[in-house]
């Protein structure tokens, strides 16, 4: 098959697109230009940076995993179930997208805190306290990031042709088998894209985390918290930490893009 030549980009699209790139990239360029490269070594050598970075990566990945386990089924329900009240459910699910994360953190306290509706019971019956633990970091990040996954996956499910599920049913597959063997593989690119969004959002999470999980190096101080606190005292250190976070996330996204997000190539 011959490829047709790429047509040029129309000017009314090109100009705003270039502005958008400038708008998004220039602040990053600012960080890079302003970075105290000489201090980079000593700043990074401190144990706090590695600790915060490791915690960030672990907790964002855990939050993504939790979002996948809970969010994909939720997306299925939103996309496929015919139950009434689905639109209300969808609106509720997207609330964390618009809620200021700090408020989200307080809301988590009201449920899972020591005095919270569920947390009180956990504390008294099981002697489990969630706030100020790494678990709390994962929960706060999941709360804020899962809607991104749910929305992406629901969109992918809606775009997928439901008649494939009919075809699977005529081939003897019950709904669960159909979900596992047909639906899930078919929307895999959408799930991967949603997971990446979710992970990126979790990695940058600040407000809900610092409120619900607090800030303690090694347990709950993720990179964004470290950046914020560094900014209080030493802006250069904050820039260095930001660059580390930036480099790690860009590297991870590029890697994932190559491995997961590219469309599966046709078999030879």
């Amino acid at each position, binding site marked *: 098959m011959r490829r047709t030549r790429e047509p040029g980009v129309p000017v009314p699209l090109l100009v705003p697109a270039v502005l958008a790139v400038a708008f998004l990239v220039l602040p990053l360029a600012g960080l890079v230009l302003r970075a105290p490269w000489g201090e980079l070594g000593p700043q990074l050598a401190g144990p706090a940076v590695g600790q915060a970075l490791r915690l960030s990566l672990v907790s964002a990945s855990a939050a993504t995993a939790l979002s996948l386990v809970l969010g994909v089924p939720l997306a299925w329900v939103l996309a496929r179930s015919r139950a009434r009240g689905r639109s209300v459910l969808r609106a509720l699910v997207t609330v964390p997208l618009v809620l200021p994360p700090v408020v989200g953190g307080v809301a988590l306290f009201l449920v899972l805190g020591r005095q919270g509706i569920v947390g009180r019971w956990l504390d008294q019956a099981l002697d489990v306290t969630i706030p100020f633990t790494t678990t709390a970091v994962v929960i706060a990040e999941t709360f804020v990031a899962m809607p991104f996954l749910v929305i992406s996956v629901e969109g992918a499910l809606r775009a997928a042709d439901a008649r494939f599920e009919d075809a*699977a*049913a005529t*081939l003897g597959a019950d709904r669960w088998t159909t979900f596992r063997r047909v639906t899930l593989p078919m929307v895999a690119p959408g799930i991967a894209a949603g997971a990446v969004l979710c992970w990126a959002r979790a990695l940058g999470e600040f407000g809900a985390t610092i409120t619900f999980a607090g800030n303690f190096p090694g347990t709950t101080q993720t990179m964004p918290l470290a950046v914020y606190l560094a900014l209080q005292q030493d802006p250069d250190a904050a820039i260095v930490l930001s660059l580390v976070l930036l480099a790690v996330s860009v590297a991870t996204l590029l890697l994932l893009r190559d491995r997961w997000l590219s469309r599966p190539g046709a*078999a030879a």
Partner: protein
Amino acid sequence: MSLTADVRVDRGPMTVELDLEVADGEVLAVLGPNGAGKSTLLRVLAGLLPPDSGRVAVGPETWDDVLAGVHVPAHERRLGMVFQDHLLFPHLSVTDNVAFGLRTRGLGKSAARAAARDWLARVGIAELGDRRPGRLSGGQAQRAALARALVGEPALLLLDEPLSALDARTRLTVRAELRRHLGEFPGSTVLVTHDPVDAMALADRVVVVEEGRVVQAGTPSDVSRHPRTDYVARLVGLALLPGTGAGTTVRLDGGGRVAVAEETAGPVFVAVRPESVALWPARPEGSPRNVWPARLVSATPHGSTVRCELDGEVPLVADVTATAFAELGLAPGTPVWASVKASDVAVYAR
């Protein structure tokens, strides 16, 4: 394993109410315009849509019985279904697509694959098993879809417009193959189509559905010779004659020869549309290559034309205007001459 279905489904303003029986080995074509309720019927038979009332039974098994509260879900019905645009799972190889139904019903992986490969050979695409469906042509994909539907030895085969997504040339060959496979299939088949040629070529019996109801039922030739409604007349007024092609001539199985425009060879169908047939009181002058003496058997007016059923060496159906019918002084038993241009004759491999 014959199918009996007597179901009613309320679809908004329209009610689909159909009563069907299909014997073992029989192919029933459900013919009708878009929106007539054909697909609804198939979804009910497949178990994808519960009927509002009625029963569906295949052999001794009751699949739906609204009064008794029985509804066997699709995945528990022993059926195979072929969809218009094949719906092969894009993430599985062709072999795994065909093996899918066997796997869900508990067969081991290698046994399922072996059976799948066997069926791919039977539909003539053995060498394509490792491909993804995206890399098959339309005809190949529809063959794979047929293999996927038949591999599980279903009691009921449902075909939903199986040829309409194919281009004209591919359609001819796939139709001929489908006819062969349907001939070997021991269960009941329901074929939904809006193309009368599919119905004529593939079905033992035809039911014509309009607005959710059967308007006519019978063998394909019955229906085309005695259309009960205008729609049926326009739709199925087609004489379909089996014969053997050699060059630009087809020798009909029932005797007689038909000149055609394109070269053919082997077993074929000759199809003549009734509006292509001209009637003459005497042998026409000039040199039309297809001229046959005939005798009028029956005449059925519909709209401004009259459908004339002709008997003779070549049995044909002709549509003539009411005026011409009167001028020819036609009455049952009247001898006439019928002519058809070679270029108006369609030929299908069978």
